[in-house]
């Protein structure tokens, strides 16, 4: 069964860190540019994320993630560059199509922001096992039942994808068309999705029984299967990230006073 998680254990420095430091890194990467009020802080975080990802040998895995948003970013650049209101200064003309400076600058801001979000999330999701993350949340007082709901998604989706392949083959063998005009394809949707929905709802009944038998609703303190991932470096990293955010705020206030 193929896992849907993007996490990979490479024994790198980021793999050994606790999830908290990496989540704080995301918060710092998102908040600092806002606090400092300049896109260049975001640019700095992008470079920092790339260095971290290269160092952890997972940079290749960011390509599909960037690909998902890359296409949308391309349309943003084109649409804003061509049509944004307040576009007056032409910079580039390809035949009749003219790109304007204001729109392109606006799109550049969006590109920086989106890349920053994507890459700082990659630092977390490519190097952290989802179940470790949820377990740590539960340790900090998150509801264990909600924790179960989150972790079990990672098991259920691969199972359901397998069922989906079986059902598609079964319905095709009964003569269902899955290719053709739009109407044919719309009609195919219901016979494909409803067996999976039914079987997964019926499965929930059995799963609920199995869980209750194993004390899912027990109210006493839960114990954990895995040890908490946390080492000495975590604390230094967390403090320095907090300092970065404070510096960003101080810089904003100083700049504001100078003006």
């Amino acid at each position: 069964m193929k896992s849907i998680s993007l996490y990979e254990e490479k024994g790198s420095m980021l793999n050994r860190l606790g999830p908290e430091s990496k989540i704080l890194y995301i918060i710092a990467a998102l908040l600092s540019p806002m606090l400092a009020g300049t896109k260049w802080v975001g640019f700095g975080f992008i470079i920092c994320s790339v260095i971290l990802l290269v160092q952890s040998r997972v940079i290749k895995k960011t390509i599909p993630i960037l690909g998902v948003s890359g296409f949308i970013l391309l349309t943003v650049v084109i649409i804003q560059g061509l049509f944004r209101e307040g576009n007056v200064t032409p910079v580039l003309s390809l035949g009749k199509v003219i790109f304007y400076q204001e729109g392109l600058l606006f799109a550049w801001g969006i590109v920086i922001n989106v890349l920053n979000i994507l890459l700082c999330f990659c630092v977390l999701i490519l190097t952290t096992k989802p179940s470790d993350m949820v377990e740590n949340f539960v340790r900090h007082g998150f509801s264990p039942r909600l924790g179960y709901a989150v972790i079990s998604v990672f098991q259920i989706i691969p199972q359901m994808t397998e069922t989906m392949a079986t059902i598609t083959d079964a319905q095709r063998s009964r003569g269902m068309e899955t290719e053709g005009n739009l109407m044919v394809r719309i009609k195919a949707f219901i016979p494909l999705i409803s067996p999976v929905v039914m079987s997964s709802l019926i499965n929930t009944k059995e799963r609920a029984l199995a869980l209750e038998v194993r004390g899912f609703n027990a109210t006493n303190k839960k114990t954990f299967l895995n040890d908490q991932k946390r080492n000495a470096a975590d604390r230094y990293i967390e403090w320095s990230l907090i300092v970065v955010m404070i510096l960003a705020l101080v810089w904003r206030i100083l700049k504001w006073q100078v003006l």
Partner: protein
Amino acid sequence: MSNTTRKLWTLKFNTATWVLIPAAIGINYLGKLFAGVLKLPLWLDSIGTCLAAVLAGPIAGAICGAVNNIIYGLTMDPISTIYALTNIAIGLVVGILAYKGFMDKFGKCILTGIIAGCVAVLVSTPLNMIFWGGTTGNVWGDAAYAWSIAHNMPALLASGIDEIIVDLPDKIAVMLIVFAITKSLPKSLTALYRSGDTVESLD
């Protein structure tokens, strides 16, 4: 057992409801996958959320929507995490409407779809403005956006139109599918998720 005895805002879920949440997220995922395989011009990625909201109430629907997008964020597209807000809103609205009896008849079900679609537009448009400058990445929606901007409409309105073109048909289709599914579910299954119901003992 009449509907009125069910508690709408209960946080005390029974085990079946907790198990329904991951299953619903799986259904969301498959809906999106099938829509992709069949090359349908819709997302159909909130069937599970709406189903959970109809079966187990607004809070379950909202949790389902939130966890769904957090998982998407962890596995495919980090930006979609923030759109959890949209899915939470859809879960809440559909849950409340279903509780008020909007999922009983075909016509009302389409109305539910329209309302859910409008709520999705209201929540998503500001997010689109913040993160993408107003576009959605859907070809038809973005074409409308470009057209509106080129005709000197304000960006917020253009972005709203963009999102309506994408979201409204999608949510109506989703509600119709959910309607078809819930109508064909056996009572023994739908009764599982009603946490407010009391069990009467015979002895």
